[in-house]
């Protein structure tokens, strides 16, 4: 009786990757393109895209995608510290309401209200979450799930900040281009900044806290200080997105605390691959335009995000980005066992 022939799949780094990783002086143009093309092309695409969609309906979609990309990036930063948030709407809403309030009540111009909202919002969110920093895993997630709801209800009940009507007729951007490029540059800076940050010493501590917080504590590092810093950065990014959106729409209402601003960033980060930041960005730039194409479905879009979230969790848990990255760096072959 003969044994059946069996194969196993083997993955090997491409030669060019090995060379580009280890040799510090890049010799050939090919090596350089190999390294820079995947970084350069998306940036170029983002910078050029507004010219193609300007003035139309898709301009709004592009702006919208940038805002969600910022939220997804801030989710991913928190997730890499092990703080899985189920309420990015908290950051978004706090930023939106602070900048809207400053503009509406104090008549602040937008070049003051947006930076102020970013900083003050980040401080506010950090202070809010400092009390629950000791919580781990699912307990932290539950707090973040509840907080945006709490704020939405508080605003409705106390009838402050415009109550159920919201704050209307806020100062718009002087031109659509400014808003668009503010959004795009913010996405690019956050994307590459976060990718750099997570590989610095600071980022290593953050990843360490995610993997095993007690070991990091035993190393004599104050993990709460690091967690607070991470929340401050993530909160700032989320609040900035909220503030931009407020002035773009010239309106802020309770809808900024809605489930959309939680589920979509979450779905895009999970679809794209958590922990890589690039994945979260790719995810949003796939999901947001997709949802606009499917606008005819109306309320079903939320259901669709849910379905995508489930599918991504079950079918491709590593995420799109890690899958593409693997295909780019490695080749596969079947080896006879």
């Amino acid at each position: 009786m003969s044994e059946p022939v069996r194969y196993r799949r083997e993955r090997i780094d491409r030669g060019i990757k090995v060379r580009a990783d280890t040799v510090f002086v890049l010799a050939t143009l090919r090596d350089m393109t190999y390294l820079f093309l995947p970084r350069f092309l998306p940036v170029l695409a983002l910078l050029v895209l507004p010219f193609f969609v300007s003035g139309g309906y898709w301009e709004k979609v592009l702006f919208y995608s940038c805002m969600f990309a910022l939220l997804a990036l801030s989710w991913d930063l928190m997730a890499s510290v092990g703080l899985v948030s189920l309420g990015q709407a908290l950051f978004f809403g706090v930023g939106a309401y602070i900048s809207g309030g400053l503009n509406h009540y104090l008549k602040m111009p937008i070049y003051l209200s947006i930076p102020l909202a970013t900083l003050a919002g980040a401080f506010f969110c950090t202070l809010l979450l400092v009390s629950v920093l000791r919580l781990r895993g699912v307990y932290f997630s539950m707090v973040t799930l509840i907080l945006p709801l709490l704020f939405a209800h508080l605003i409705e009940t106390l009838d402050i900040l415009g109550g159920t009507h919201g704050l209307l007729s806020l100062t718009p951007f002087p031109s659509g281009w400014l808003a668009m490029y503010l959004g795009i540059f913010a996405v690019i800076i956050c994307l590459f900044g976060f990718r750099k940050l997570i590989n610095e010493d600071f980022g290593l501590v953050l990843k360490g806290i995610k993997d095993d917080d007690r070991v990091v504590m035993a190393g004599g590092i104050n993990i709460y200080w690091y967690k607070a810093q991470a929340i401050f950065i993530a909160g700032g990014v989320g609040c900035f997105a909220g503030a931009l959106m407020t002035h773009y729409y010239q309106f802020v209402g309770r809808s900024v605390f809605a489930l959309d601003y939680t589920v979509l960033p979450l779905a895009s980060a999970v679809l794209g691959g958590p922990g890589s930041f690039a994945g979260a960005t790719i995810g949003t730039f796939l999901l947001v335009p997709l949802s606009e194409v499917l606008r005819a479905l109306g309320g079903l879009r939320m259901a669709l995000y849910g379905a995508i979230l489930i599918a991504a969790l079950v079918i491709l848990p590593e995420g799109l980005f890690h899958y593409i990255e693997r295909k780019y760096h490695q080749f596969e072959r079947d080896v006879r066992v």
Partner: protein
Amino acid sequence: MEIFIYGITNSVTLALIAIGFSLTFGISGVPNFAHGAFYLLGGILTWIFINQLGIPYLFSAILAIIIVGFLGFILYWGLMLRLRGLVINEVIATLAAAIVIIEVLRYLGFSGFTYVLPEFIKGSVQIGKVWLDYQRIFLVGIGIVLILFLYLFTHRTRVGLSFRAIAQNERTAISLGIESDWTAALSLAFGSALAVVAGLAILPLGSIDTEVGYDILIYALAVGIVGGLESVPGILLASFILGFSQILVATFFKAQWLTVVTLAAIVIILAVKPSGIFGKYKELEERV
């Protein structure tokens, strides 16, 4: 007197809502964030059975309970089994499942005054100065029976004990011959079925609104967290604390404060004592 009677009915309502959720998430450690969605789905299925297919009320109710219980079982085998152990992913997946169910129901338009479930017995009775309809009395009765059942079930029967076992220590449970996957799936099925029972008791008091799906989850979460997820006396105590404080707030301030109280209770308890008033098992894993 009014406050007392409404407080009791409100508290038992909360307890009813929380029982199924606590059975899955608290007692056997399987997060079921689709609890509110199942509650809603059960109500709507019953409505369809009665009004579109003409099945008698009792049979439609039983049918809905069985179908949703089975859906809970499928949710475990089809989805959660692949994510088992990654608690966060389990939470995200069930929350996503809840969103899918609720939003599809909303899209199909199952909301508004046409969608009313029949009361068990129509009419009302006067206690002191307060008129109380029979449905609320039934509700209190069902609530008390279910809480007693839950306590006896988790402390006296083999299946109930194994539910608690896999939450405490899954490996030890397996080594003692408890099939942990089977038990977890069963507990999800039980929890979903209990959600429908709660829905059938509570929904006749008003019309069905899809938004309820999210609210129910929050109430269940609130009761579960305040009382301590794995403890039956905790559920009872927490629903009385929350129920009476809601009624007090609604009587002396505005009705909108009701939800704020609930949400604030969750956040405060999570910040101060995440395992809840009666919780014991999980004190080591919940915080550093």
